[in-house]
């Protein structure tokens, strides 16, 4: 285990041990690991389980339940396309198609050069200026298919 666990992760898991009498919180630790590493390597499951006094099955169960806890590293830039109903009504599907054709990947995939990961998101609460596309945390509203090329070029 020590051979692959980076020291920072080791430290995190030591700090994440619940205090005497306090309940463990697997999801909280998973979030912390995700924030630290950008994803959760399934090989870290035993160490996470140990830190929380939980079983590996408990940890794997929580990890697989939450859609945005990734078990693989994402690309350098994360593109999230909102597929909420207001975005759908405002033709976000055409925006998705434009991004897919520009990058040559499908939803849920990362470009071979590791630059972009394309993810669907079910609603970002930007319904009044839809469709919405979030890139690395920056939200763009009223996105048209013709905007896609310029938008992505800003991140190259």
């Amino acid at each position, binding site marked *: 285990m020590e051979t692959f666990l980076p020291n920072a992760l080791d430290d995190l898991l030591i700090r994440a041990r619940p205090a005497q009498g306090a*309940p*463990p*919180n*697997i*999801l*909280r*630790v998973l*979030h912390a690991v995700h924030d630290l590493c950008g994803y959760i390597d399934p090989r870290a499951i035993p160490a996470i389980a140990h830190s929380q006094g939980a079983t590996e099955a*408990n940890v794997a*169960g*929580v990890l697989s*339940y*939450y*859609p*945005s*806890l990734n078990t693989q590293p994402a690309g350098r830039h994360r593109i999230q396309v909102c*597929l*909420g*109903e*207001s*975005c*759908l*009504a*405002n033709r976000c599907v055409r925006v998705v198609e434009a991004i897919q054709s520009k990058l040559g990947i499908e939803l849920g995939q990362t470009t071979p050069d590791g630059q972009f990961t394309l993810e669907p*998101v*079910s*609603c*970002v*609460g*930007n*319904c*009044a*200026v*839809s469709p*919405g596309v979030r890139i690395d*945390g920056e*939200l*763009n*509203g*009223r996105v048209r298919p013709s905007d896609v090329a310029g938008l992505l070029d800003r991140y190259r």
Partner: protein
Amino acid sequence: MSRVRLYLSNDTSSCAAGAERLAEAWRQRSDVELVRTSSRGAFFLEPMVERDSSDGRLAWCHATADDLPKILAGDGGIPVSSIPFLSKQTRHAFATFGVTEPLSLEAYRAYGGCAGFRKARQMSPSAIIEEIKTSRLRGRGGAAFPVWKKWEVAATTAADRKYVVANADEGDAGTYCDRMVMEGDPFRLIEGLLICARAIGAEAGYIYCRQEYPVAAACLRAAIRAASEAGWLESDGQPFPIEVVSGAGAGSYVCGEETALLESLEGRRGVVRARPPHPAQSGLYGRPTIVSNVLTFATIPNILARGGAWHASMGTEGSRGTAVLQLGGRVKQPGLIEVPFGLTLRQVLDQFGQGMADGARLKAVQVGGPLGSLFTDAQLDIPICFDAFAKADAILGHGGIVVFDNETDMLELSRHLMAFVADESCGKCVPCRIGSLRAREILETVQRGQATEADLSLLTELGDTMKAASLCGLGARAPYPVLSALEHFPVEFRNRMRS
């Protein structure tokens, strides 16, 4: 050279519409003092720049960086008070939106903030609950349960600890009013939590904020720091910590269901708990817990400050106060609308939405998020209130209204909505877990042109089972949009059947 004070919204949607670009362009200028406010919610006009005048605020709508000379000269602005979308509203929970800086406690106080909490501090817990009872406030998250009843149960259940949890997992697509409160008026949510905590005797509060709202979480944290420094977060010498748990649901929709939310808050899979017991009796870590959505808490301070009778004087018989609606989709004027309950859906779409976007014709309106029923043009005269919607087998939910135009493929929309439920089902109960998957498969069979009448009958039958036997609202409501699409647009399904 004197600086001209300009007001520009800092709301995520305003920024997405271009406000951030304006801020970047003008930040360094010596002739501009830029004040970042909350948004008025008239998003169709964003980015909108305002400045003071003898007629109150003047607004420049759809502003670009090149408009600055005009704005500085005072040319071409329109009085905000003359914008019908705003002037026709009855703003209470959203009264200060667009006016104040979200993190200014001073501004919050200047516009009447803290008055409710000050009053509550002088009242007994039971008197606070009595005031909420008088107000006839019902939860704004979707279930519309009388707020005072929950509070009374939590207050009278004996326990060593009690909790207050703000459900900030605003997952219903088409809704954004909670996000606006958290980003634009975070002290109001905190004040609501404090009043509730005093009424039930809670010792800690949590705000369960969804991952998709990073700005809201940051605003809340900053607001909690400011409130703590101002001495708010203690009562009779006892500290009352409020923790923002951000990113909590990690993309899971069902974590907005109160018992799944509590499971998730405890760090487990966000799986729904069977009720009873209700969270007010046994919630977080088995202790009495009030879980209410953000808007509900944000409605509380005004009720305490102005009295329950004031709140009860607005709205309809069963739905008192104001409805906060969020208009989106293919309308001309999408945005946030706060009006007394009782206007019809058509009035809202006409008076505020101003009809359809250019070239579009109305096909269907979905109210209440992805589990909400679809309405056709002929059904729009329904009054916006909990009871009329319940009678129509529909839900007002969290107030999201999404308008679809004539180009919408209702079969594909149905498949999308059912696939969403199949993805989001927590898996605890069979009707939802299996039912949503089978329903999605049937809709895909129709899309492939391989379905028969028997498949559509099975879809209806599955829907009835899910409605009757699901453990929570996700499975129980999932069939409604799909079956209402099938009912109102049968041709779109039947034309694609196997002949």
